[in-house]
């Protein structure tokens, strides 16, 4: 245990050396084709650098560019801005980007309806079941929630409230007060089948996507409408790599940070794009919502009334074998990374961290409750009785939630049957008494018979009769 905790400390120390604010690393690669556009986003870069990220700017045309070095990630985080041409070129093909995500790299993909979305990007997003409009220049408008100051005519700067909770049981990393300005966004729709994708910011109910080329006519077949249209959506892979699709890259520009906007018929207000973008990058670059399992422990509880036969076995932690109907305590220590360090992880009231004791299918699925809190973690634990079924079981904690890194812990143990000398003895079972009594009465009867056979003297007349018989036959 001591060794383990010191190892943990060492690991923590290593981690803190490697990264500043993110749980995984601080190297950010920004793919920016037009160097002159860098100035438009100066506040965004400054925000990132304030948070100890090391930014490298590269053009997708650079043929030396590689996301990997010696088979390892060269950059933990990647910001993609829309390319001018049909794709990002041979150094950033969808395949390479997928490999990057599979290796654990985080991606913030910015889209823009002005420069259009290349088909390579659309096909990459289709891999995650996020679809974009087939129109390359599709744009989201809302004639009811637009900025009167900057888009009085075209209505293509949407004013959206900051997102609320996705579900009652999901942590909201993007909430808060204020209005967001979303200029010239590319809307996405999410496929229903994949649980790894989640919407972050949805369009208002009256919004729709259209192709600016068909402005003269009325829109008859919109790509998507209302809240089915997502402006910002996220995909978190099972390896906890995060991929955020930002429908409007322009949101990050200096001029939209704290810009004065006005709803039609409403008051003027300042946008909170800067705060929202900070939340968005904090989540994408794994500064928040990163869960880590520090330790897992399970052991058998013995009641004090039963004196233990083998004291060393009783106090063994994480044994490989239990017996059926043993009382077992299971605890797991989980910390949540919060910008600079790990803090105790708190499960929302409407959610539950669950332990499964499973062989093929779960026999027990029990909620884990917090028992102790340390500086960096919470210890969740529960007790239960192993089922009356022997076999190879596993303690499983499978905690996957939107926006939190998945936890999948599996610890295999054997559950054996009662040994022959662990059953209650037959004299303790009242129902067995007649049978046990029968056995011993047979034994006593046998001994009596042996005595009788060896030492009994026949009656006198019987001897006479036998003698007469033996005389007559001979």
């Amino acid at each position: 245990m001591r060794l383990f905790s010191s190892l943990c400390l060492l690991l923590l120390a290593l981690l803190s050396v490697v990264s500043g604010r993110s749980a995984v690393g601080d190297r950010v690669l920004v793919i920016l084709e037009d160097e002159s556009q860098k100035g438009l986003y100066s506040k965004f870069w400054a925000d990132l650098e304030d948070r100890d990220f090391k930014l490298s700017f590269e053009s997708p045309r650079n043929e030396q560019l590689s996301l990997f070095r010696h088979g390892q990630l060269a950059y933990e985080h990647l910001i993609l801005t829309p390319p001018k041409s049909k794709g990002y070129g041979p150094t950033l093909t969808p395949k390479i980007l997928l490999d990057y995500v599979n290796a654990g790299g985080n991606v913030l993909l910015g889209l823009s309806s002005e420069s259009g979305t290349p088909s390579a990007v659309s096909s990459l997003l289709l891999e995650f079941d996020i679809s974009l409009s087939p129109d390359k220049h599709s744009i989201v408008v809302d004639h009811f929630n637009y900025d009167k100051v900057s888009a009085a005519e075209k209505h293509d700067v949407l004013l959206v409230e900051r997102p609320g909770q996705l579900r009652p049981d999901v942590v909201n990393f993007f909430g808060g007060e204020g209005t967001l300005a979303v200029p010239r966004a590319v809307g996405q729709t999410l496929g229903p089948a994949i649980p790894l994708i989640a919407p972050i910011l949805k369009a208002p109910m009256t919004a729709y996507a259209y192709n600016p080329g068909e402005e003269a006519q009325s829109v008859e077949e919109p790509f998507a409408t209302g809240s089915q249209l997502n402006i910002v959506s996220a995909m978190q892979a099972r390896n906890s790599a995060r991929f955020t699709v930002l429908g409007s890259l322009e949101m990050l520009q200096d001029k939209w940070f704290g810009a004065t906007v006005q709803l039609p018929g409403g008051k003027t207000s300042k946008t909170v794009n800067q705060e929202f973008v900070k939340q968005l990058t904090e989540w994408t670059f794994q500064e928040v919502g990163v869960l880590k399992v520090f330790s897992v422990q399970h052991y058998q509880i013995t009641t004090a009334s039963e004196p233990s036969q083998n004291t060393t076995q009783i106090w063994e932690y994480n044994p490989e074998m239990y017996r059926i109907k043993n009382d077992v305590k299971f605890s797991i220590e989980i910390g949540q990374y919060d910008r600079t360090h790990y803090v105790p992880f708190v499960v929302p009231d409407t959610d539950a961290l669950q332990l499964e004791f499973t062989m093929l299918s779960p026999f027990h699925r029990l909620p884990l409750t917090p028992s102790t809190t340390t500086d960096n973690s919470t210890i969740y634990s529960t007790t239960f009785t192993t089922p009356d079924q022997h076999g190879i079981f596993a303690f499983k904690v499978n905690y996957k939630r939107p926006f939190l890194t998945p936890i999948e812990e599996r610890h295999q143990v054997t559950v054996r049957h009662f040994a022959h000398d662990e059953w209650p003895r037959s004299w303790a079972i009242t129902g067995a008494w007649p049978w046990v009594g029968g056995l011993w009465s047979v034994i006593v009867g046998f001994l009596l018979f042996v005595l009788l056979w060896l030492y009994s003297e026949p009656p006198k007349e019987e001897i006479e009769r036998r003698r007469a018989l033996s005389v007559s036959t001979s």
Partner: protein
Amino acid sequence: MRLQSLLPQVCLLLSALQSGAVAASWTFADGSISVAAKGAGVGGGFKETLTPSKPLTTPVKLGSADTLKVILTTQEGQSAKRPHQAFLLLQDPAKKLDVSYPFSIKESGKAKVELSHKDLPLQLLRSSYPLSASIVIASFGSAEGYNSKAFPLTIELDPNVPIPVAEKPLRYGKLPEIHHIFRPDPQSPNVVISLVFLGAVLATVPALLGAFLYLGGNINHLGKALSSAPVSHTLFLGSIVGIEGVFFLYYTVWNLFKTLPVLLALGVVAFLSGSRALTEVQERRLAGLR
């Protein structure tokens, strides 16, 4: 001179701008809603006129074979005009779902949308509350858009036609708890019953003894046997009692590895002493004593 000629033009321009700003508000006229059942013919079914900003209060019922039709003429201010957006917006307030159906609009502003069960997503089709239907008319520029509730819509499902169950997609979340149900422990009958039968079983031993005595059983030859072959008889009887004793010890405390060697030793003693002892018994028989 030149300024004077410009002045009326500027006035005209200003007034035009002003009128544009004031009149700009989208609305509709000649609105009507009808639900036509299949094969009901003209005039059959439900028909109602729609007026802007005055939603119907009674829910419109849409059966499984019916077609709902909304016809209206979009207007900007007073003049008929085609907007960019003209949607029939259906909302499920309970599930916070919304879906829009665009009107098909002619240049003159005449707009029409038709809706039947097959157009509706499954989630809305199964909604137990009336859906709220709004009409949304808006376009670019300064004209204010129109977005107001038009009518509540109740979906009437045909019980004979099963609608496909919306397959619930996998979402990560809390799962229902499972508590293993243990098999019931083995039960013993009432201890009184056990004791009665135990008593009956143990009573057979005195009964056996009584039967032996009644039939004339005795141990009168014991003295004779012990005097003629004392060692073998003692050992034989002792080993038989000892074997039963070993069985008792095995039942209570010993294990098999302890039991077997002792049993073997006692068995050898019983075999050797038994053959001598039984020879003595045979001699008694040949002597006619038994």
